[in-house]
């Protein structure tokens, strides 16, 4: 009995194996054909059936068969490279300000713009049809849009602060002669007061003396600072230039997004809908032709 049971179990298992293998083979055949005919939409469906069902067919709870999908896990880079051709062509029209660099097979860096100085903005996730923006860079852009509503620019506060610091330093440099005159004047006063000091110095005399010494100290501090002021001003100017550049880059980015999408919110919305919009665009292309999906 036991062995019979075993046998029937073995039959069940081999049936199961056969059926599983058939599913896998069928999956691979479908993928093979889709790749062959560059039916990118089918490739995307095969790579993530769940998402496809949900976002394109609006059928919820269609689980992915990990057993078959994992078959091509080791081909992710190649599939990404393969699918990037049409995707980047599409993005070239819909996001004309993004530029991509394939730094290794199937991996794409995003650059925002091709202006004089530009930012690296994250990566393009081709298999998931998604931008994975660098969060720090993205946050800067987000913030600059918020500031623009208040008529401000990203680095304005810092630039203003450094600029007024430079004005102060320039003032120190410009008033060197006045300081020197004042210093001599105070020293003479001090000499005068010192001659009245001594053991029985009046408290008023002492207060004046201390006040003069303090003034003298302040002048000397200013003198010391003014000696390095020219260099500091130069360094500050470099910082201001770098900050202004960042402002300029952000204003170019804002301009590009507004030119293309109208607002930052619409840009974000488009990012969220990118998968569906892209696959639909592929469908539109195909509908015109003979590419009716035989597997549906």
């Amino acid at each position: 009995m036991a062995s019979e049971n075993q046998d029937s179990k073995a039959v069940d298992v081999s049936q199961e194996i056969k059926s599983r293998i058939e599913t896998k083979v069928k999956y691979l055949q479908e993928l093979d054909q889709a790749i062959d005919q560059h039916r990118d939409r089918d490739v995307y469906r095969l790579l993530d059936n769940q998402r496809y069902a949900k976002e394109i067919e609006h059928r919820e709870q269609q689980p992915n068969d990990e057993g078959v999908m994992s078959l091509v896990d080791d081909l992710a880079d190649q599939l990404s490279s393969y699918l990037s051709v049409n995707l980047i062509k599409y993005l070239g029209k819909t996001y004309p300000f993004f530029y991509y660099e394939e730094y290794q097979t199937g991996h794409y860096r995003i650059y925002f713009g091709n202006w004089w100085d530009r930012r690296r903005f994250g990566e393009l996730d081709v298999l998931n049809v998604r931008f994975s923006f660098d969060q720090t860079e993205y946050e800067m852009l987000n913030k600059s849009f918020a500031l623009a509503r208040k008529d401000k620019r990203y680095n304005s506060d810092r630039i203003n602060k450094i600029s007024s610091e430079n004005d102060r330093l320039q003032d120190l440099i410009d008033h060197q002669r006045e300081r020197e005159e004042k210093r001599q004047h105070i020293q003479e006063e001090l000499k005068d007061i010192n001659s009245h000091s001594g053991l029985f110095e009046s408290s008023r005399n002492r207060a004046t003396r201390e006040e003069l010494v303090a003034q003298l100290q302040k002048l000397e501090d200013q003198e010391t600072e003014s000696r390095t002021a020219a260099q500091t001003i130069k360094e500050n100017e470099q910082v201001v230039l770098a900050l202004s550049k960042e402002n300029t880059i952000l204003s170019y980015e804002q301009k590009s997004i507004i030119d293309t999408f109208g607002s930052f919110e619409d840009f974000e919305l488009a990012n969220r809908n990118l998968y569906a919009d892209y696959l639909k665009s592929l469908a539109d292309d195909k509908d015109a032709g003979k590419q009716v999906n035989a597997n549906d």
Partner: protein
Amino acid sequence: MTSNKIENSPTAKINALSDSFKQVLKRGQQYVDLLDQLAQTDDAEELLAAAEKLAEQDLHNAFIDFPQHYQAADYCMLFMGRLLEMHNVTSVTVDENGQHEFVAMIDPLTDASFKFVVSDNGEAAFTEQTQQQPLFYMNLKQRLFQFNNRALVNYFIVYALKKHSDLELRDAIKPLIEFANELADDLNFTINLGILNTANDERFKLQEPNLQLTVIDRLFVKTGETDYMLMNLPQNSGAELLLDQGIKFDLSFDPDDYSQEWAFQVKDPGEQVSFFDILLHYTMVREWYLADRDALAVRSDQLIIADDEDDTDQSAATIPPEPESEPTEEVLSTTAIDEAPEETADDESEAVDDEETPEQKKHDEDD
């Protein structure tokens, strides 16, 4: 005539005097004929021949002095006036002033007058009188003509723009360009329009071999609040400013050329816009250029061999080969070394020494 006896005779002496008079009169007749020719001919070649001969004419003679009336500079001005007149260019008026000198006025520059200043080598510099800026040089004998880039900027962009609109100045410069083209068309002059050239492939190399990229950063920053954009050129070979009506203003180097010589270039669909026009019409570019002029000054190509300004200017000889020494004096010193040929030798050695250049490029690409 070989015998002393005959020469010493009174007859011989009188004959010698008479011959001399005849020569002088003949020369006087020639002079008058040339003046007529200069004033009346409708043929450009004859006009040039007259001006050239008159400018060279030596009327002095041991026996008779003709009262000297005009100088070589005046014949040059008359030549220019007549050539323009032959081409119906009316905005330049040539007239004689109180000192028997011919001066030109250009409409609508009512406050400016122009004279030729001729140097020993026969080079005539068309010089604006209040600012002493030689706008162009011409050499009638060698048939050469060239604009002086630095003087054009000094006079029009820095000085005249304070009193005149950009459109007025554009009108004022037009007859000068026409004159140059007439010299080329009618008389086969070799001309160099310099920064007035509107050809798209014309490149104006910077005088300073090394350009700090922060200089371009400053232009980039200036565009931040305008509708114009400064783009990066392929292979990080420079920047391109996108202006109105498809006009592109480049500051770049040839990425295939190891020396990496920076140059300006203006490209527009109709090839009608020059580098000078950009400086004249775009305040943003003009302010940027003038603020960093020592770094951005354009080299003056030399058609004409010697520059007398450099010969007489003692400071030119004493300027050290490295002009970077004192930042405050750079603006002044570039005026003097603008046309100094020694500079070119330095360019090459510096470019070769600069080991960082290819590295730098690589970094930028990696970025």
